[in-house]
C-alpha cells in the first residue's frame, strides 16, 4: 500500500503539470500554475524517502526522492510559486501557461530523476521550455540573449548525449551511483559532462546570456533564472561526476581555476558598473563560480569532498533562491535602473559575425558539390539534345543505307564474310 502511495506521489509530481498543459483543462481551473506545483509541495513536506522505477518507460527509468534532494525540491517549489504569483498579473495567455507548465515539469523531473536518462530527458524539456519563457513578449536584446542561450543549450545537450552514450557503453545500469563508479576510467566522459553543464549553467566565460537577460527580461523569467537553468545544471554536475571516489587531477584543477576566475570576474564587473538591477546576475555568476570551485576541489581531493559534501545541496538551493530574494527586495525598494545594452550587443554580434563567415564558406563549397552531384543528371537529360546535333548525320546515314547500290554491296560483303568465317 505504502509502495503504491509512494509511486503515485512521485509520478504525480511530474504527470499533473503535464496534464494541465491541455488547454481545455487549464482554462477551466483557477490559477492553474499554482495548482500544478501542489503535488510537488506535498511531496517536499512528506517524510521518508521514496523511489519507483517503470521498466517500460524509455529504457526503464524512474523517480526518487532522498534526504538531501529535499532541499532542492523545496527551493524549486518556492521559486516556482513566486514566479507563478508574479506572472499571474502579466500575460495570462494559453501559450505562456503551456510553456510555464512544461518548464515546471522539466524542472521537477530533473530533481526527482533516479538515473542519467531520466535526468537528461527532463533537463532537455526544461531547457527548451525556459527558452520559450525567455523569448515570450520580450525585446530585441533579450531575444538575442535567448538565442545565445539556445545555441549553448543545443551544444550542451549534444555533449551530454555523447557522454550518456559513453556511460551506457561502460555500464548497463544507468543509476547515478553505478555510473559514477564505472566512468572513472573514461576521461572523455568527464570532460563532456563538465563542458555540457558549464554551458547550461552560464558559468564564466559563458555567462553572456545570463547577464544580458537580466537587463530586460520579464519578471517571471528573472525569478526562474536561478532556480531553473543554473541550479539544475549545477545539480547535474554534482550527480553525474564521480565525486569522492577517485581523484581526477586535471579536470579538478581546471574546475577550480574556472570557479575562482568566475568569482573574481563577477566581483570586478559588478563593482565597476554598480547597477542594482544586475546584482542578481553577477551574484549568480559569482555563486556558481564558488560551486564549481567546490566541485573542482572535490575532484582533486576526494577525502575533502567526503567531509564536506553535505554542503553541496544547500549551496545549490541557496543559489536558486538568490535571484528571487533580490528581485523581491528590489521590488520592495522600488528602484529603477537604466540598462546597459551596448556591451552585450557587441559580444553577441561577435559570435554572430563568426557564424556569418562560416555560412559564407559553406555556401561556396556547397555550390561546388552541388555542381558535381547534378553533373550526372544534366548529362543524361542532355542526351536528346546531343542526338539532335547528330540529327543530320544520322538522317544522312539512313538515307545512304536505303540506296540499292549500298544495300547490295553490303549484302555481298555479308555473304563473303559469312563464307570466310565458316571456312576459318
Amino acid at each position, binding site marked *: 500500500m505504502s509502495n503504491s502511495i509512494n509511486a503515485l506521489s512521485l509520478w504525480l509530481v511530474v504527470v499533473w503539470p503535464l496534464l494541465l498543459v491541455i488547454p481545455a483543462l487549464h482554462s477551466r481551473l483557477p490559477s492553474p500554475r499554482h495548482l500544478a506545483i501542489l503535488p510537488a509541495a506535498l511531496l517536499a513536506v512528506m517524510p521518508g524517502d521514496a523511489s519507483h522505477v517503470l521498466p517500460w518507460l*524509455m529504457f526503464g527509468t524512474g523517480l526518487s526522492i532522498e534526504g538531501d534532494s529535499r532541499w532542492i525540491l523545496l527551493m524549486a517549489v518556492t521559486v516556482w510559486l513566486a514566479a507563478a504569483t508574479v506572472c499571474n498579473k502579466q500575460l495570462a495567455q494559453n501559450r505562456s501557461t503551456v510553456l510555464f507548465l512544461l518548464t515546471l515539469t522539466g524542472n521537477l523531473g530533473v530533481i526527482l530523476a533516479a538515473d542519467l*536518462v531520466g535526468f537528461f530527458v527532463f533537463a532537455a524539456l526544461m531547457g527548451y521550455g525556459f527558452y520559450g519563457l525567455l523569448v515570450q513578449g520580450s525585446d530585441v536584446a533579450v531575444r538575442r540573449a535567448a538565442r545565445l542561450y539556445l545555441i549553448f543549450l543545443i551544444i550542451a545537450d*549534444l555533449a551530454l548525449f555523447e557522454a550518456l552514450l559513453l556511460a551506457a557503453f561502460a555500464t548497463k545500469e544507468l543509476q547515478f551511483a553505478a555510473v559514477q563508479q564505472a566512468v572513472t576510467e573514461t576521461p572523455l566522459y568527464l570532460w563532456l559532462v563538465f563542458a555540457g553543464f558549464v554551458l547550461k549553467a552560464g558559468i564564466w566565460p559563458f555567462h553572456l546570456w545570463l547577464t544580458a537577460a537580466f537587463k530586460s527580461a520579464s519578471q517571471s523569467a528573472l525569478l526562474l533564472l536561478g532556480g531553473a537553468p543554473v541550479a539544475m545544471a549545477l545539480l547535474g554536475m554534482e550527480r553525474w561526476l564521480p565525486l569522492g571516489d577517485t581523484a581526477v587531477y586535471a579536470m579538478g584543477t581546471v574546475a577550480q581555476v574556472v570557479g575562482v576566475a568566475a568569482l573574481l570576474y563577477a566581483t570586478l564587473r559588478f563593482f565597476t558598473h554598480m547597477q542594482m538591477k544586475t546584482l542578481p546576475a553577477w551574484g549568480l555568476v559569482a555563486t556558481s563560480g564558488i560551486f564549481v570551485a567546490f566541485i573542482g576541489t572535490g575532484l582533486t581531493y576526494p577525502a575533502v569532498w567526503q567531509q564536506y559534501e553535505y554542503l553541496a545541496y544547500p549551496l545549490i538551493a541557496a543559489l536558486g533562491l538568490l535571484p528571487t530574494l533580490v528581485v523581491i527586495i528590489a521590488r520592495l525598494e522600488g528602484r529603477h535602473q537604466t540598462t546597459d545594452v551596448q556591451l552585450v550587443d557587441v559580444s553577441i554580434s561577435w559570435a554572430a559575425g563568426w557564424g556569418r563567415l562560416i555560412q559564407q564558406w559553406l555556401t561556396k563549397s*556547397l555550390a561546388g558539390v552541388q555542381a558535381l*552531384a547534378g553533373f550526372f543528371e544534366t548529362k543524361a537529360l542532355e542526351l536528346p539534345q546531343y542526338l539532335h546535333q547528330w540529327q543530320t548525320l544520322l538522317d544522312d546515314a539512313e538515307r545512304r543505307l536505303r540506296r540499292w547500290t549500298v544495300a547490295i554491296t553490303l549484302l555481298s560483303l555479308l555473304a563473303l564474310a559469312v563464307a570466310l568465317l565458316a571456312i576459318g
Partner: protein
Amino acid sequence: MNWNAWLPLLMVASSLLPGLVIFGLGEQRFRLRTALNLSGALAKLALVGWMLWGVYHGQHFETRLPLLPDLDLVLRAGPLSLLFVTLSAGLWLLTTIYAIGYLEGSPHRSRFFGFFSLCVTATVGVAMSGNLITFLLFYELLTLATYPLIVHRGTEEARRAGQSYLVYTLCGGAALLLGTVWLYTLTGTLEFTPRGFIHAVGEEHHLALVVIFILMIGGLGVKAALVPLHGWLPKAMVAPAPVSALLHAVAVVKAGAFGIIRVVYEVFGVERAAMLGLTGPLAVVAAVTIIYGSVRALFQDDLKRRLAFSTISQVSYIALGVAIAGPIATIGGVVHLVHQGLMKITLFFCAGNLAETLGIHKISEMNGVGRRMPWTMAAFTVGALGMIGAPPIAGFISKWYLGLGALEVGQGWVLLVLAGSSLLNAAYFLPILYRAWFRAPADAWPHEHDFGDKETAWALLLPPVITALLALGAGLLAAAPFSPLEWAQLISQREFYQP
C-alpha cells in the same frame, strides 16, 4: 494451397484490386471511390494483424509461384518483412484519409487513387519478397507506379521532375538487375537467408562480389537517396503533399533503404560483407549523405524542399546503422526505418496542411502560424524535435542505438557525425518552430481557405496528430513489449552469429 500460402498474396491483392477498379470509375463517383479506398486499406490492416498474430504463434506464411523454370516468385512473412509491412499498411490508411481530404475538388482523382493503390501494392510486395527476383519485380513496379503520381499536376515543372525521376530510377534499376543476374550465375539461388547465402562462392570471385555489391547498392541507393544519386528527390517535391508524404516516409525512399538492409544482411551477410571490406565505404557514403543533406537543408526557404533534404539526410541513418556492422548498430538502423517514417510523414502532413489551408509554401511566410493552426504546429513540433533527436521522441532512441553500436565496434567517428547531424537538424528546424510560435503573424495569409471555426478539415488534421502521437509513443514506450525497438532487437539477433 492452404490458407497460410494464400495470405501473402491476398495482402498484395488487397490494394491491387481496389486500385484497378478505381481506374475505371468516373470522376464524380466520389463515394464509391472513397469506400473502395478505405475498405482496401482496412482490409490490408486486418490481414497484417492476422499475420502478426499467426507469426507470434509460430505459424509460417509463404506464397510460392513459379516464375522461371528454376526461380520462384516468393512472398514470405519474416520479422523484417512484417516490420516494413506493418509500417506501410498503417501509414497507407492514414495517407489515404489525408489524400481524400487534400485532393477534394481537384481533377483526375480516379487516376490518382488508382496509381496510389498500385504504389502501395508494390511497396507491400517489396516488403514481403522472399528472394531477390521478387524484390526486383516489385521494386521496378514501384518506379512505374510512382511516376504518374509525381507528374500528377501536369505542369511543365512536374513533367521535368518526372523525367529526372525516371532517369535516376531506371538507371538504378538497370544496375540492380545486372548485379542480381550476375550473382545468380555465381550462386544459383536468390533466396533471402539470414546471414547471407554467398558462403559457397569461392575466393577467386572476390572481385566479382565486390562489383556486384557496388552495383546493387548503387541501384538501391538511387531510391534511398544516397549522395550523389539523390538529385531526383528535391525535384519530386512538386507532387501533391500526400504523394510527398507517402514517397518520403513509406514507399520509395524506404524501399531503397529496406533493400540495402536486405542486401547487406540476407544476401551477403553482414560479417562476410565486412570481411570483403564493403561496409567501410558504405559507412563513409552514408555519413557524407547525412551531413550533405542537412547542410543543403539549411539554405532552403521552400518548406517542402527543406523537408526533402532532411529526408535525404535521415534515411542515411539506416544505411549507416547497416554499415557499422554490429548487432547494436543494426538495431538502431532497423528501428530508424519505423521511427523516421512516423516522424517524416508527420512533417509532410503538416506542410500539406499549411499549403492547403493557408497557402503557405515558404518558411518566410510561416510567422505566427502556431496561433492560427495550433494542433498542426504541435504535431510539427513533435516531428521536428524527434528529427533533432530530442528525447523522449522516437528519433532519440534510434540515435542512442546508433551511437552505442558505433562504440561497440570501435568506430568513434560516427558519434561525431551523429552530433554534427543533430546540430544541423536543430539549426534548420528550430528557426521554423521559432517563427511559428513566437513571431507575430503577417496581416494576411497568402491564400486562406475558410473552414469555419475549425482549424482545418478533419481529414487533414487527424493524420498528422495520430502519427505525431505514434512517434512520441514509439520513443516513450520503447522498452515496452511489442514496441518497434523490441522488434528490431529480434531482427538483429537473427543476423549475427550466435556461438
